[in-house]
Structures are given as C-alpha cells and as structure tokens.
C-alpha cells in the first residue's frame, strides 16, 4: 500500500496562510492504515492547526471530513458541498488523492497535507518499510522474492556491492543489505545458482522513465 506521513506543521501553516476556511479532507484507505490521513489524523491536525493559527493571531475555521477513497470521484462527490463552502482544501490523502481533488474541483485549490513516501508494508504496528518501486518489470522471481530495486539503496541488479558489511548497507547500519537478504533466501531455497546469472541492464522505460504510466483495459471500459 501507499505509505505517507504528515508534512511538518509549519509547512502546512504557510500553505494555508492565505485562506480563512480550510477543509481538512482525509482518506479512508492507505493513509488511514498508516496513521497519516484517516479520520483520527484529520481530527488531530484540525486541533493542532486551530491552536497554532490562533497563536499566530489568525482566525481560521477548519472543517473536518474523511472520504472512503480520495482517488475516486464518486467518493469525493459526497463532500462537494463542503468543498464549495471552504476557501481551500487541505488533503490528507496521498498525492493521487490530492490530484483527483484538484481535477474534480478545478475551481478550488487542494493542498497536500502529506508527503507520499513509498509503496510499503506495515511490518509491525507503527513501522512501515518500503517494498516496491513500481518499476513496471518485476524481477522478484529472480531474486528470491526480495526486491533489489526498492530495497537495495543503489537498486543494483547484480549485487551486493562492496559496501555490504555484516549484512547491512553502507548507507546506514540500520538498513539491511538487500543483496545479503537475497543471498540468504536463495541459499535457503537451494537456488544459489540464480546468483550466478548476470542480469542484463534493466529497461527502465517500463517505469516512470518511459513517461507517465497508463494502463487501459478496453474490455472493462464503459
């Protein structure tokens, strides 16, 4: 799922400086699960902003709402009236939700309250780890199910590099070396021969390098 975190309060404050009535709009899906933009987070941010802006001598009004999935018009339609009423929308959805809102309500600006960070896994309560880079050409079948693109700091296809020390990455001793993990897994699977296979350079055009991604399923279109 998409993992995001809230922007620093100061940055949010300066974004909304020119507006009086702010609709804080949460999203009930990924960002709820990663405690960044669900109904609870909307309430907390509203409370923090009410206090912070009052301290700055501003008299702002905050409206709180949360839709089920902000990347869909149908769900956002439910808050159309609130959007109309507000001077600006502060979205606590991922970047996709923010853009959907801007597209759907072109007369109203929707601002991002979150930084969308990565595609990741909630590995334990309160911890999220990056797992996928959406490269468009999955290699997990060659790497024991561990992604070297997302989890190797250098996205090496033929690792590890010389910076791998005691299973950790040279960029940070807290970060596992993805290639150590791959090696260990392949060894456990009895497939170490896959390590010997030299992977040819990746065709990055399948990912963002090839321009904005788009998928069309003609069979599904109405």
């Amino acid at each position, binding site marked *: 799922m998409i993992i995001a975190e809230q922007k620093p309060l100061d940055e949010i404050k300066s974004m909304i400086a020119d507006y009086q009535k702010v609709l804080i709009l949460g999203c009930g899906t990924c960002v709820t699960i990663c405690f960044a933009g669900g109904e609870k987070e909307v309430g907390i941010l509203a409370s923090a902003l*009410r206090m912070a802006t009052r*301290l700055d001598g501003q008299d702002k009004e905050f409206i709180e709402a949360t839709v089920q999935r902000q990347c869909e018009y149908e769900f956002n339609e439910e808050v159309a009236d609130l959007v109309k009423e507000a001077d600006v929308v502060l979205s606590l959805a991922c970047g996709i939700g923010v853009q959907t809102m801007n597209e759907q309500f072109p007369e109203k600006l929707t601002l991002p309250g979150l930084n969308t960070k990565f595609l990741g896994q909630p590995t334990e309560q309160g911890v999220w780890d990056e797992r996928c880079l959406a490269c468009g050409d999955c290699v997990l079948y060659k790497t024991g199910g561990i992604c070297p693109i997302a989890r190797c700091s250098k996205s090496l296809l033929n690792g590890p590099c010389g910076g791998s020390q005691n299973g950790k990455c040279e960029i940070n001793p807290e970060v596992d070396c993805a290639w150590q993990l791959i090696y260990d897994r392949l060894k456990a699977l009895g497939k170490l021969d896959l390590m010997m296979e030299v992977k040819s350079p990746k065709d990055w055009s399948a990912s963002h390098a090839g321009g904005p991604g788009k998928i069309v399923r003609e069979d599904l279109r109405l």
Partner: protein
Amino acid sequence: MNRDENTPGISPMEEMSPPCQVACPLHTDVRGYVAAIARGDFEAAYAIAREPNPLIYVCSHVCAHPCEEECRRGQVDEPVAIAALKRFAAERHDLSLGHGPPKPNVEPKEQKVAIIGAGPAGLTAAYDLARMGYPVTVFEALPEPGGMLRVGLPKYRLPREIIDVDIKGILEADVEIKTNVCIGRDMTLSDLKEQGYEAIFIAIGAQQSRALRIEGMDLDGVLLGVDFLRDVNQGRAVKLGRRVLVIGGGNVAVDVARSAVRQGRPGSEKEVHMICLESREEMPAHEWEIIEAQREGIILHPSLGPKRILGRDGKVVGLETIVCSSVFDSEGRFNPTFVPDSESVIEGDTIILAIGQASDLSFLRPEDGIELTRRRTIKVDPQTLATTAPGIFAGGEVTTGPGSVVGSMALGRRAAISIDTYLRGEDLTGLQFGEWRELDDLPPKTVERIKPLAREPMPMLPLEERAFNYEEVELGYTLAMAMRAAHRCLTCGGGAYVDTGKCAACLTCVRVCPYDVPIIKEGAAFIDPTECQACGVCASECPAKAITMKLYSEDQLYQEIDALFADAPAENPEPLIVGFCCLYCAYAADEWAESVRAQLPPNVRTLDVVCTSRIDIQHLLRAFELGADGVFVAGCVGDECRHTEKAANRIQGKVQFVKEVLDQVGIGSERLSLYDIPSAEWGTVPRIAQEMTERIRALGPNPL
C-alpha cells in the same frame, strides 16, 4: 403491539444484553448503575437503578437478586455484589430530589382501576397505572401497605422505615391506598364493578401458611410460620417455649428460625432447631442465609421428614421424624421417599411450620367466573395475566405461588400494561413482551485473562449485638467498599462496537487489544461482545474512528472535558491544571474518592476516566485547546491495571505524541505530564498537582 420506549425494563433490545439484566425480572440496567458507581456518579447510579423499580429501597435490602446468579464475573471468581451496590446507591441518594422520575405529562384517564392487595405486585401495578394517568385505588386488608414486606420479612433484614420510603414514593405518584379493606369480608368483586372500577387486578399474594396433615397438629404449641412472623412484625405477643422446632428448609423457615432466636429477653435463651426434608446441600434457602442462621446458633437437622407431633396434656413435647432419602423423584417432582424404621424424636415445646404458603381465595364466588389452577392459584394467561373473567387480571404470588419481591413486581408491571391495553379497547391477544437476547458465557480464553478481584464482603452486625433485637444485620457498604465492588463488573456488552462501513481493516484493534478480541471478518473488524472487556484501548487508537464504546463513550469524555471549563473564570490568577485520573487505580486507594480529591486546590480540575487506555490524543489536545495551562495524566503502574500491562502502557505513546504536537504548535511539551502512581500512593496527587501548578506558573499561562 410493542411497548419499548415508555416502559422501563420491558423493552426488548436488538443487541445482546448482559445476563444480569436479562435475569432481573424488571430488567434493571445493572451494568449501567454499577458502572456509574464505578465512575463515582452516585446520583446517576440511583437514577438508573430506580428507573424500572418503584420499590428500589426495599429491593436494595432484600432482593433475591437472581442477577448475581447469572453474573459473568462469577465465571472468573465470584459474582459482582449487585444487590449491595444498589443499596449503596439508594443510601447515597438525596431523597429531596424525589424518589423517582417526575410524573410524565400524560392525559388523565377516566377509567378507574381497582387493585386488591398492597404487596409488591399490587403496588407496582398501581404505580405504573397511575403514571399512565389512570385513577388507581389499592384495597388492602391489613392496616398498612406492603404485603409480605410488612408482615412477612423480619425487621432485621428489612427495617420498616425502608418500606415507608418506597410507599411514600408510590403515594406521591397519586396512588390511593385504602387499608383495612378486605375484599370478601368488607366488599365483593361485584361491589367493585358496581362502583365503576373498569379493570381489577388481584394481587393478594400467598399469605397463608401451608399446614401438615399429621397427627398432633391441634396441640398447643404448634404455630404456622407466616402467622408467627405476622404477629412478631405487628408487635403482638408471641409465646415460644425453650426448644423451638422449625419445620422447613426454605428462606421463610430461616426467617422464622432467626426470628425465634431473637424473641424474648436476656435470660430467656432458647434452642432453635430447623428440620427439613432436603439434605444440607439441597436446602432451598439461600446459602448465605443458612450460614447466618448457623452462626446465630440455629441447629440444622436436614434429611428428616416430620412424622407426627408428640404431645402431653394437650401440649407439644416433641416431633417424631423419619429419615428422608430423597425429596424428588427421577422426573424432578416433589415425591419424598423415607427410610423405613428410621424414626427418632426431637424434643421441643414449640413447633413452627414453614413449609410453604398458599393464597386465601375464599373471597372468590362462582359468579365471579374466575377459574383456578390445580395448584390453587388463579388461572391467568401467562402473557397478559388476564383471568377467565373479562376485565379482571391477577399476578404476583397469587398466580405463581411463593416467589420473590422482584418477581411479583414484574408481574405487577405486566398487569399494568395489559390493563392499559384492555382499557384502551385494544386486542389483548396481540400484546407481546419482547424476548431478551443474552450474552453468552465468557469463553475460556477470556476468563483466563481477566484478573481475579475478591468480592467485597458485606459488613455485618456483630453476633453479640443481635440478641433479642431486630437491628438490621447487613450494614451496607462504605464508599470505598462500593467503589471496589463496582470495579469488579466486567461491563458485559458495554464495550466496543465497530462501524464496519468506516473500518479500514488496519488491524490496529486486533493488535492492541489486551484480550485478543477483535478479528477481521468479512473485510472489517469484528468485536465479539461476548469477549470484549470494554477497556477502550481499541477505540482510542482506531485510525478510522470506526469504534465506539457503548458505555462511557469517547464523546462522553469530550463532554466531561468541556464541562470542566464551563465555569472557569476568564481571569485566572492561578494556572488551570486539568488532570485525567485513572479511575481503577484512583479508587483502589480509598482516600481518592473520600478525601484526596477534596484536597486539590480549585485551580486543579480532575476528570475520572475508566482506565487511561480510554484517553485518546484528541482528548488531551482538547484540554489545551480549551485553555488548560497544564495537563497531567495519572494512571496506575503497569501491573496494577485492572486490564493488563499492555493496556496500561498504551498511554505513554499517546502522551509522547501530544508533546510533539504541543512543541510544533508552540504551546510547549512541558505543559503535559504523565504520572505513574501506584494505588497506594494516590495520596500524593495533591502534592503532584501543587508541583505542577508551580512549574506551570513559572512557565506562564497557556499562550492561547
């Protein structure tokens, strides 16, 4: 037709109800009043307990409390002391606020209703009908209302002032009671009809002792239990010998025996024996009553049948008994079998029979058209309590045989609803009383996780102070005892409910619950009310705000926070400190409720929360938003939590998070403090509050 909203206690509920409430014939919201006591809100507790019960003071002393038998706490250790807690709430209630809720604003009705018998059944029906607007008259044969309460129950269990308090409440509801009017002797049923009573409720109870058909019944010294109690209760002289033999093993027999012990004056000590068919284990009297009887010196002779009363010169000299090997046959019917040639004699000069009561139905005439059952009770439709005569209803012990106060009251209530239906000209056959759905037993995995907490014993009058008087034996709980007793309630079914439409299936609740209750089922969290212990951890952490606590919801906490500020002076010389105090640990130290809280200076305002795990981030922020200069959370040290350490520790992360927000906002994290206070050290709270006040004074007011 369904009478849900307006009829307390009769409403069927869609959700599953706690077994205490289902077991109570009046369906008292036990969980609700016990929780209110646990929160320290005693008037709220009284109001909840009073709602279905116009005889609340009486019940709070002598209710047979079937609720406790079903209480799920009993699966862990012992049931919650529900009855004792009701008594505590009643004793705390300020009667100048009224006995019950004010009379509803209803259209006065024309049709007059007559009620025969001012016992629990008759009084309840009268009260309910009067509140519906009917002119109600109760006809009572005895000089005072109350029925068996007045003339049966011994005063050492039910002081008479207690009855008077409830009777006064009933009279205030515009019920007319005519005493010294015996239907059959002074008036007939037809007289009542002629006088314009359009409906009649017969609630004459079972006021006669059953006799035995054995030799010697006519001897001098043979007394009937109910007559004996009536004489004692009405202050008439009762002649007892030195060896009193009480025949019977039920509650009435125990009351007779314990009353016999009390009769006379110092120097007239006597031996009191109880003889019953049942074995000691099978004795129908409540165990605690039997134990008290034994402590008062009563000698039990179980498994013995009375064969014949022995006499000399027309006076009782003893009882010949025979060993009873079983009381009931294989089909559970009363059918005692005796061991041949096992006769023996117990010497005694007085014999009191307490083997059951029956109704005196001699006032009924054939032309009344009222049929009886084979058990010599009045035959009624079990749903509507209609007798075979139109417009005449009957209920209470006259239809059930010997029962309980609360059981008779429930039938009085039912009769009132039926009579109202009848008088409105509606079809009685359509009258439906909803079924209650009951929560299942606690599953074993939950039982294992619930911390045992000893039941608070009832303080009792010392044995030596009971001789030759009728002083009440049970003395009632002190505040600290009541608090501890109330905190044992598991708040069955009052816990977490999920709005599946909002749930994001994030698994937070699944992971944080100290009792492992939530699961994800069909794409959303499912919290089985059978298992939930209402700690509130999940609700305070759900990122989708999909969980609500049924009892003491998050919103209620917001309201309480708001209320703290309602009267805060605008110009405050002292910093305003708000303390969120965990109730479980706070009251584990008795002083909190009784004295510590009172020592807090006026600038410190505290909120009692049921477990710190209930507090969520927004609650803390709210206090600052409303202008608190400082906020503290005081909770127990991990393993003292009524739930688990896992629950107790959840507050730490929340406080840390709020501190970060306060720094970002510019209010400053040092205005929020978390104190772990062992229950034994709750006396230090005023000092902590003082320290905090000084610290915050130095910081200056909340910049907001």
